[in-house]
């Protein structure tokens, strides 16, 4: 059994980035499996909705940060290890004179753990995305990817932020 989430269109963001609307206006398809929770804490529907919403938003920040090579764009949605590692990639890209465009096509997500203290949520996201690597404006290569992410989010003042964002090979 799954749930489908509506994602607001990011037309304003596209305009702000100067990206071709056709390239980004198509929002990814999102499938949310019914949570299979470890842990004793019940997950309220409102919490689940907020976590999914904030996680999907973090993809937008991640995409923009790595496309524009601006680590500061990560701050709103990432903290700790996840933020540090993505910022490392931004720094590396700047040094190498490249930037990367990640276009997520679909997300298949399931929340698997809500800690008893309410301070962390873990989800699994099977993502399909298109990755394009540019040397300045020249496209070096592009390919689709199907990747399983393990994600840990923790609450901040107003939103859930991604603390661990790690692709894993297989189950």
């Amino acid at each position, binding site marked *: 059994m799954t749930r489908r989430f509506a994602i607001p269109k990011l037309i304003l963001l596209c305009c702000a980035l100067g990206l071709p609307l056709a390239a980004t206006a198509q929002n990814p398809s999102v499938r949310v499996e019914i949570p299979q929770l470890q842990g004793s804490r019940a997950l309220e529907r409102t919490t689940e909705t907020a976590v999914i919403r904030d996680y999907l938003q973090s993809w937008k920040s991640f995409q923009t940060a790595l496309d524009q090579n601006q680590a500061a764009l990560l701050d709103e949605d990432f903290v700790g290890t996840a933020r*540090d*590692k993505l910022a490392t990639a931004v720094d590396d890209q700047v040094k190498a004179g*490249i930037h*990367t465009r990640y276009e997520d096509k679909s997300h298949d997500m399931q929340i698997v*753990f809500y800690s008893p*203290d309410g301070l*962390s949520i*873990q989800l699994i996201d099977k993502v399909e995305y298109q990755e394009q690597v540019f040397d300045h404006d020249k496209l070096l290569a592009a390919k689709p990817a199907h990747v399983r992410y*393990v994600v840990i989010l923790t609450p901040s003042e107003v939103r859930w932020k991604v603390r661990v964002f790690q692709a894993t090979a297989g189950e």
Partner: protein
Amino acid sequence: MKPGQRWLIGGLVATLATAFAQSANITVPRSIEAGSAFSIQTTGSGQGKLYIVGPDQALARDVQLGESVPFAVGDLYNAGHYFVILTGASTGIAEIDVLPAAKPETLSFLARPSRVPVGLHSGISGAVYVFDSYNNLIVKPMPVSFDLSELAEAPQSRTVTTRNGMAWTEMDSAQKQGAAKFSATAQGVSRERVITEVPGDPCGLTISAHPDAGKLNVQTAPVRDCSGNPIPDGTIVTFTETFKGSQSTVDVPIKKGIASVSMPAYSGAKISVASGVVAGNEIRWGGGQ
């Protein structure tokens, strides 16, 4: 040569170049352990550039095509899925997965709560995330042992295998108050938290009254929880005297284990006691007890 022929030949050359470029490849290990040394074999000749690009790290190297490109220990250390791109006279693309190291380096141990009443079933919980030395979450299943040790009681132990890098458990708080050490250990790496186990609610709260210079001295028996732990000094005990429809209430902190108060000695008054949500006995003062 006519312009049309030049275009045709140019197109054929470009197509052939593309075909060769696409047929040239690179040999990349399907996966490596984070931070380990590895190499990528290139084909062709001349100069090229090799990129390894992922969301968590990006590397670029000028390479001599046809040679093996070595990467030293610690070059590629963030776990994830990477895109390998070779440019130059020969081109190629490949993928590589960087897996977390097998050995844990740090545990993120979330223990809750820091203070807990004694005798609470599943009152203490702990969740552990296991990381390697590069702060990669180790997702390969791994046993984590949780131990809760109190001075006066036998320790509780439980071993839980991680799923997706996480293990969690719940344990009962002890019957006796005191500081408990709650630890989590995975492959020799430990983290410890101190849980303060405090007395629960008062249990069997009783009072007695004695006349004292025209007043009534009302006093509790030593206030303890249901496990016999003394309730801490400072805990508020509420005495209530009801007489002829009027009621007076006095809040008194426990001192040296008991609470006492001086109240008017009305013959026929009812005096009751409570602490928090726990009610004690009620006595009627009739000149005697």
